């Protein structure tokens, strides 16, 4: 897996953020999930979204890649301003993600799951593929080669041909990351990549995320509850509570922010 070519291009553009959310508000039939949230994500950074349950973190990720459409506000990704994202458009522009409750294709093998992550890199038509003519065979090889690199990177070779639904939880999480990485994304959204893992698995997953960020220059936005992991991994932390942003800065800024402490530990009344 080679570092994606556009990274050097956008660095030369100056310090414009890769992703900018402006005044995003999202409600479901009057229930406000997210209220007037704005923040920037710098190219190449690891940004953590933290906050108590129900703070609107997952909703915000869903807005970024278009699973939900915000009622107000705008999303700027790589210089393109949009009122709404659309999942397909987000994928085409290079936004990949994982889900909180693993959203793998359970009936398929690990390899097939990873290969689906590369579906946008296809040029040959289904007819060429069915008849195995034209561009299809060469492309099949190239896709497979790339998928194998991702599989190797995340150390899941032994399970290549296993059906995903039968793998243990921790491995499924890793396969989901592999599927997202297979698309060679510029922005990777991770929704609780370490939820339900033991300390050792968390450590392993953290180092995979750090490696992805360092080796491919992939910008990462992740949601995580384990503050220890967040402080160790993230360059930039955004704190949400009841759908509002209450903190935004480096891990150290956030650690000393009284509002954040109040949200997490409660205050004396």
């Amino acid at each position: 897996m080679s570092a994606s070519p556009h990274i050097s291009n956008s660095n030369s553009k100056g310090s414009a953020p890769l992703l900018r959310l402006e005044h995003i508000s999202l409600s479901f039939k009057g229930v406000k999930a997210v209220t007037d949230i704005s923040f920037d994500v710098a190219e190449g950074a690891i940004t953590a979204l933290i906050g108590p349950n129900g703070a609107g973190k997952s909703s915000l990720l869903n807005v970024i890649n278009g699973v939900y459409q915000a009622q107000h506000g705008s999303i700027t990704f790589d210089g393109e301003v949009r009122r709404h994202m659309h999942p397909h458009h987000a994928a085409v522009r290079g936004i990949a993600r994982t889900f909180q409750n693993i959203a793998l294709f359970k009936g398929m093998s690990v390899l097939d799951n990873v290969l689906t992550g590369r579906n946008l890199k296809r040029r040959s038509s289904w007819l060429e593929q069915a008849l195995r003519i034209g561009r299809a065979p060469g492309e099949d090889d190239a896709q497979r080669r790339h998928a194998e690199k991702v599989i190797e990177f995340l150390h899941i070779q032994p399970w290549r041909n296993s059906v995903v639904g039968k793998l243990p939880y921790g491995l499924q999480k890793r396969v989901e990351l592999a599927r997202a990485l297979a698309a060679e994304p510029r922005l990777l959204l991770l929704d609780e990549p370490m939820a339900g893992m033991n300390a050792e698995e968390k450590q392993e997953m953290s180092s995979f995320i750090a490696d992805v960020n360092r080796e491919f220059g992939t910008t990462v936005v992740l949601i995580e509850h384990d503050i220890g992991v967040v402080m160790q991994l993230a360059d930039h932390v955004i704190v949400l509570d009841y759908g509002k942003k209450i903190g935004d800065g480096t891990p150290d800024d956030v650690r000393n922010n009284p509002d954040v402490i109040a949200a997490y530990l409660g205050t004396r009344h």
Partner: protein
Amino acid sequence: MIYTEAGQFSIRYSHDRRIFRLRQDRIGITALLLFAFAAVPLLGNDYWFSAILIPLLVLSLAGLGLNLLTGYAGQLSLGSAAFMAVGAFATYNFQLRVPGLPLLASMALGGVMAAGVALLFGLPSLRIKGFYLLVSTLAAQFFVEWFFTKFGWFSNNSASGVISAPPLLILGHDFSNPVGRYLLTLAVVVVVTALARNLVKSELGRNWMAVRDMDTAAAVIGIPLLRTKLLAFAISGFILGVAGALWAFTYLGTVEPHGFDLARSFQILFIIIIGGMGSILGNFLGAAFIVLFPVLLSQLSGSLLSGVIDAGQLENLQKIIFGVLIIAFLIKEPDGLARLWQIARERARVWPLRY
């Protein structure tokens, strides 16, 4: 021991993509095809060809058509017989109205027509799922049956609405005798099945399964849901259309709307449920079960119970036993016959050890 992959290494990615990766599978399928093409025509009799083998093959093909849509792409449908009817009537009309068009070309065009109709009735799948979709495909079933009964032009204004199929001529050879019809059916089924097997292992096949297993995630990684679902309907429709043409031309010998009623759609659905969803082999096993089991049952009950119970009752009894057996089997093995085959294969792999 007898079914092990030991010593067979894939040293190229293209080896992994072969239709049958294991040498044992390749030898097995070659032997089976040789047997089917060379030995069966010599061994079989007309009853076997006309009453068992031809319907078995055609229903397998129809099952394959539905399985791509339901087992792979996860879209339920009860319109299978309707798409078969479109294929049959279109093939008949191409043969009738375009002089000189080869039979196989007419069948392919019939398939294309069925694909078009299936595509149209697949449009609701973009908005609705599951049982609601099932009901909307039911509309195709009733509409098509009514349509071909109502408009006589499609059956060449024949008074009874039943038309006999023309002789089956391919490159000057007459395939109208039972052996010829069997060979023609077999050849078409083998070719279409091989293509389908390639297709489900390709990008489109993976996209279908992705949409089936988790459509939100599929959309998020960039799989176009609309295109993927509609292609499933169209390709499934094509295969069902070809199966319909074969049903009318090589099995029934007549083309009539009532050969493609709702009971046929259910029969095809049962084939894939019994055979195994999301399995190519399952279609053949399921069709064999549906075709052979009643024959076996009637032979058995005929020899054991004739004279004890009268013939009409016996027939009903057979249906009851058949239904009970299906239920019992599905409780025991909900994933169908294909799963049994898979388990047998795993056992053979480690035999004589247990694991």
